[in-house]
């Protein structure tokens, strides 16, 4: 297609039948299916794509994959925009829109680059040394620093796409679909083992896709195709493309993100954009390949400076010339094959600069092909501005110092190969310890901790023959260890093994020239060799200090290119060898992963599970708004048209005291307890005595934690001699169940008792108020609801509204009340029935708000505000309940000095001196509101409301020595509400202190 001046007319793995159009920085360009954004940009001759983080230096494309530090773009627009996206891993699609980031007004002319002019005053860590004076200016300085930093722009709107999440289990997980990985999967798959192979690329083949290797005398890609075909035909082999294994977690659980539809403008209907796979593997084969590394020299960050392997992949895979005239700079043989590929693709190779005195066979072949080879030479510097124009090349000595006159060679492409780093990221994440291998001057997998083995380039075995052989062996052995096959290794295909000359470690070339020239180690974060030297000079010598002081390796590429150079330079400066200096820690993720993908479906309202009571729809039909209580949705109020919320609450609470109301109490925890030792267990749990409770009777109980603090309360009913029905608070239902199981299974397994949660089985409604009995009696014919037959704290079983029911005469509101439990499917039915039966009494449903008002009026504490995990039974005025005759959980703690301190806070009631004045929520109690700060506090308001039944404001509070203060004037102070209210301390039960209404 025209307009792609750097695209070769033929070759490559792109689909020329599918031309695509895309926009970069507002300009339209053309590319092909199979391109990445990076290859398409290069095809169009776009070389300047980004600005660096700190100095806003012009930057181009350095790599062709995950290692790319520079070419980060703002991909897509609007709600779907994605900052910091590596152009080298973006598959081109039609209509793609991207732009450069971190530059203004444009990537070509970026005012931020002024920072570069100040660069000499901004060395590593400069901010620790300045911006301190005057101290009050720091926020201003910081404001500007923040605006200059950052990189791309975050989206501002909700993500338009969906994600999902799934688990998988397999015998052998193979990470990496290059030759080593494919071989491993093939060998494992043949045994019948369950195999998953993942590769982050769109196509399998790994580095073979960018090379021109030969396997069994045929192009290697034919072998790839055949192998992939064979694997695809195996029913228990799963091939996942575009899938990056990004975290190797404990116990061989790997997290993998599959980018399912990022290669399209948007996912098809009903499909998710990305999918997270959590794979638990019996055995893992890491065939993650190796990442080529650059060599450091002056101004080495100019657009046009690129990895050899990248330039080669652009040529072979994408038919793109990354430049017209190249200088290839290497310290190892692998670049020679690449140089020949470049030449074949039509790039003039101006020179091969080899740091080794003798490039051996490879150099001879290059010379034979007409390429100028400069042995024992190095590139001292790149020249140019927004693109490289030339390099200075000179003879160098063994340490990389210039040892002769420099020659300037014009070129627009500089290809670097400083050797290869095995991609040991996942290996390291698994807990394995890396080992330094001097022969390749790189860290390779050392001691394993988990069930993984590395093969091929990931293990430092760079020869294709080794990659295949190791892959086959690991696949077969892994499968055998997982119980499949006999471990026999299939024969490896035939490969011509080239004689390789050893590489020669060289990290940086030291020219003579200007000291101000920048020699970048970490491109993205603009960390230079001088920054590392400064860190060392100032005492930041540990590799971790260097990282943190200079930000080396902390960018979005996590130092895939620069880290090893950095530590090699450090090792030279501190005079310790590289293994002694060590690496920084490899942490997940291998490459950055979208948050959306990690959480799958659990977004928005699905963030956390929702629990709904059996009456949920009934409440919806009545227009009740809901409130969250733990995971539950509970009806808050049942408003009538025109009412304010406060009016509704008042109406509901008054109705209960004057006639009758009913409320959904299904959220209470309910536990069925059976067995000969059931009463014994209750005795050991509750602070009060249970053995003598009569059958058919309920009792109120309190449980403590072992440290003596009130844990939970509720009523428990004896349904039969060895059968109890326990209720817990809504908040603690799950915890109480676990605690029961704990004390039974751990402390007292000898007790014969069975506990089963039946919270879900029963819908519960409390009918409360002076007319409660009248309502209930209209609903049942087989239960005598009279005070004699069913007294306060009594229980009966029978039918209510024709439904099988348990009726408990218990009360939270302080009124005569019955709690009716029916099977859950009848939650709505019982509500309807009660509503109908209550009509003559003007019955109303009430919500959590009125429920709360009623219990405050009655002085009932609740778990949370009053029982806040720091209160004892005595604090709540319940010491009378504490059994003196038996042990129970938490009893021993109660006698500790702090728990018997007379200064403890005690539960009291508060009345405002002015009845109409509201007590602010969360007020603190003080004796003297005019006391200068800090002002001593003697307590706090725990619950407060306007009591519609008393016609005044009331509150519950925990106050030091509270019970000795009845009648005392104190102040409820709420500075955050800007109000302080005078209050009188009273007993905490405001209504019916003798409990007569309960018993009528």
């Amino acid at each position, binding site marked *: 297609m025209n307009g792609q001046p750097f695209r070769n007319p033929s070759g490559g793995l792109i689909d020329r039948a599918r031309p695509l159009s895309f926009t970069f920085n507002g300009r339209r360009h053309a590319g092909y299916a199979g391109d990445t954004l990076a290859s398409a940009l290069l095809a169009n001759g776009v070389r300047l794509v980004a600005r660096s983080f700190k100095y806003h230096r012009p930057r181009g494309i350095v790599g062709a994959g995950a290692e790319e530090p520079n070419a980060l773009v703002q991909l897509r627009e609007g709600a779907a925009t994605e900052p910091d996206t590596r152009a080298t891993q973006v598959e081109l699609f039609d209509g793609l829109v991207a732009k450069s980031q971190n530059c203004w007004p444009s990537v070509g002319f970026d005012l931020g680059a002024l920072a570069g002019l100040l660069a000499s005053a901004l060395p590593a860590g400069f901010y620790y040394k300045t911006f301190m004076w005057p101290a009050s200016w720091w926020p201003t300085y910081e404001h500007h620093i923040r605006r200059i930093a950052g990189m791309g722009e975050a989206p501002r709107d909700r993500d338009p796409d969906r994600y999902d999440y799934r688990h998988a289990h397999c015998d052998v997980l193979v990470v990496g679909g290059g030759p080593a990985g494919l071989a491993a999967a093939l060998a494992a798959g043949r045994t019948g083992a369950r195999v998953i192979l993942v590769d982050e690329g769109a196509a399998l083949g790994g580095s073979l896709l960018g090379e021109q290797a030969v396997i069994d005398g045929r192009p290697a890609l034919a072998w790839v195709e055949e192998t992939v075909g064979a694997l695809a035909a195996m029913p228990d082999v799963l091939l996942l493309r575009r899938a990056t294994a990004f975290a190797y977690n404990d*116990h061989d659980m790997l997290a993998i993100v599959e980018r399912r539809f990022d290669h399209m403008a948007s996912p098809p209907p009903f499909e998710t954009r990305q999918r997270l796979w959590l794979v638990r593997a019996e055995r893992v084969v890491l065939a993650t390949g190796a990442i080529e590394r650059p060599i450091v020299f002056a101004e080495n960050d100019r657009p046009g400076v690129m990895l050899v392997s990248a330039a080669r992949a652009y040529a072979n895979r994408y038919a793109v010339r990354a430049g017209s005239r190249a200088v290839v700079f290497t310290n190892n043989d692998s670049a020679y094959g690449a140089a020949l590929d470049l030449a074949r693709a039509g790039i003039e190779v101006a020179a091969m600069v080899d740091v080794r005195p003798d490039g051996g066979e490879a150099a001879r072949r290059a010379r034979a092909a007409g390429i100028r080879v400069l042995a024992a030479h190095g590139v001292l510097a790149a020249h140019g501005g927004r693109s490289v124009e030339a390099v200075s090349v000179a003879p160098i000595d063994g340490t990389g110092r210039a040892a002769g006159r420099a020659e300037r060679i014009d070129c627009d492409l500089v290809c670097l190969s400083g050797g290869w780093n095995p991609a040991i990221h996942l290996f390291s994440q698994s807990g394995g310890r890396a080992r330094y291998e001097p022969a390749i001057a790189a860290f390779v997998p050392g001691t394993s901790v988990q069930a993984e083995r590395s093969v091929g380039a990931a293990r430092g075995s760079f020869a294709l023959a080794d990659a295949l052989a190791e892959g086959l062996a690991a696949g077969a052995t892994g499968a055998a260890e997982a119980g499949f096959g006999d471990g026999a290794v299939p024969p490896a295909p035939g490969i011509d093994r080239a004689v390789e000359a050893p590489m020669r470690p060289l990290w940086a070339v030291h020219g003579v020239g200007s000291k101000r020239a920048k020699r970048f180690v970490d491109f993205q974060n603009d960390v230079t060799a001088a920054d590392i030297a400064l860190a060392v000079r100032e005492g930041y010598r540990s590799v971790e200090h260097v990282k943190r002081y200079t930000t080396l390796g902390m960018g979005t590429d996590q130092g895939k290119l620069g880290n090893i150079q950095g530590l090699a330079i450090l090792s030279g400066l501190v005079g310790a060898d590289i293994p002694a200096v060590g690496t920084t820690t490899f942490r997940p993720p291998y490459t950055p992963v979208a948050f959306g993908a990690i959480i799958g479906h659990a977004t928005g309202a699905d963030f956390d599970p929702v629990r709904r009571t059996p009456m949920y729809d009934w409440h919806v039909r009545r227009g009740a708004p809901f409130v969250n209580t733990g995971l539950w949705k509970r009806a808050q109020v049942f408003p009538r048209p025109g009412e304010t919320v406060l009016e509704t609450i008042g109406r509901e609470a008054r109705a209960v005291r004057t006639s009758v109301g009913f409320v959904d109490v299904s959220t209470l925890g309910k536990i069925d307890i059976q067995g000969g030792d059931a009463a014994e267990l209750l005795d050991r749990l509750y602070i009060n005595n249970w053995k003598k409770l009569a059958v058919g009777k309920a009792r109120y109980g309190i449980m403590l934690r072992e440290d003596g603090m009130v844990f939970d309360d509720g009523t428990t009913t004896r349904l039969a001699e060895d059968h109890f029905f326990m209720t817990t608070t809504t908040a603690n239902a799950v915890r109480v169940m676990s605690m029961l199981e704990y004390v039974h299974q751990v402390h007292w397994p000898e007790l014969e008792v069975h506990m089963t949660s039946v919270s879900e089985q029963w819908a519960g409604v409390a009918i409360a108020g002076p007319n409660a009995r009248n309502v209930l009696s209209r609903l049942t014919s087989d239960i005598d609801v009279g005070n004699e037959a069913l007294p306060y704290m009594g229980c009966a079983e029978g039918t209510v509204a024709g439904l099988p029911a348990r009726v408990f005469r218990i009360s939270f509101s302080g009124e005569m009340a019955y709690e009716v439990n029916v099977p859950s499917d009848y939650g709505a039915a019982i509500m309807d029935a009660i509503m109908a039966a209550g009509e003559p009494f003007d019955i109303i449903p009430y919500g959590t708000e009125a429920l709360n008002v009623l219990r405050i009026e009655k002085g009932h504490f609740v778990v949370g505000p009053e029982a806040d995990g720091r209160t004892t039974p005595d604090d709540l005025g319940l010491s009378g309940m504490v059994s003196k005759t038996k042990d129970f959980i938490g009893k021993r703690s109660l006698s500790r000095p702090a728990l018997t301190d007379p200064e403890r806070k005690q539960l009291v009631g508060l009345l405002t001196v002015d009845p109409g004045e509201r007590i602010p929520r969360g007020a603190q109690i003080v004796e003297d509101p005019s006391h200068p700060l800090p002002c001593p506090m003697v307590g706090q308001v725990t619950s407060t409301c306007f009591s519609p039944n008393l016609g005044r404001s009331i509150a519950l509070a925990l106050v030091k020595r509270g019970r000795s203060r009845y009648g005392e004037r104190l102040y409820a102070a709420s500075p955050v509400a800007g109000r302080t209210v005078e209050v009188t301390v009273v007993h905490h039960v405001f209504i019916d202190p003798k409990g007569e209404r309960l018993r009528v």
Partner: protein
Amino acid sequence: MLLIRCPHCGPRNQDEFAYGGDATVKRPADPASASDSEWHAYIYVRDNPRGPHEELWHHAAGCRRWIRVRRDTLSHRILATGPVHGPLAEEEGR
């Protein structure tokens, strides 16, 4: 994510379990006669080893049994699992 072998259900993901802490602390047989400092040791003081640690887990999303696990707190490797009371079975695995 840890893979914990429930002695009743078999190997399950960590997220089915709730942690229950040190399994070696024992409730004093007669709390009333325990001194403040003995009682405090039971409630608050822990060996907190760096290495093998015997601990309780509750198979809350499974069989709802409390189980005992010996796990290395440094490597997260599970060394043995078993019922609360009873022998632990060595794990050769992870």
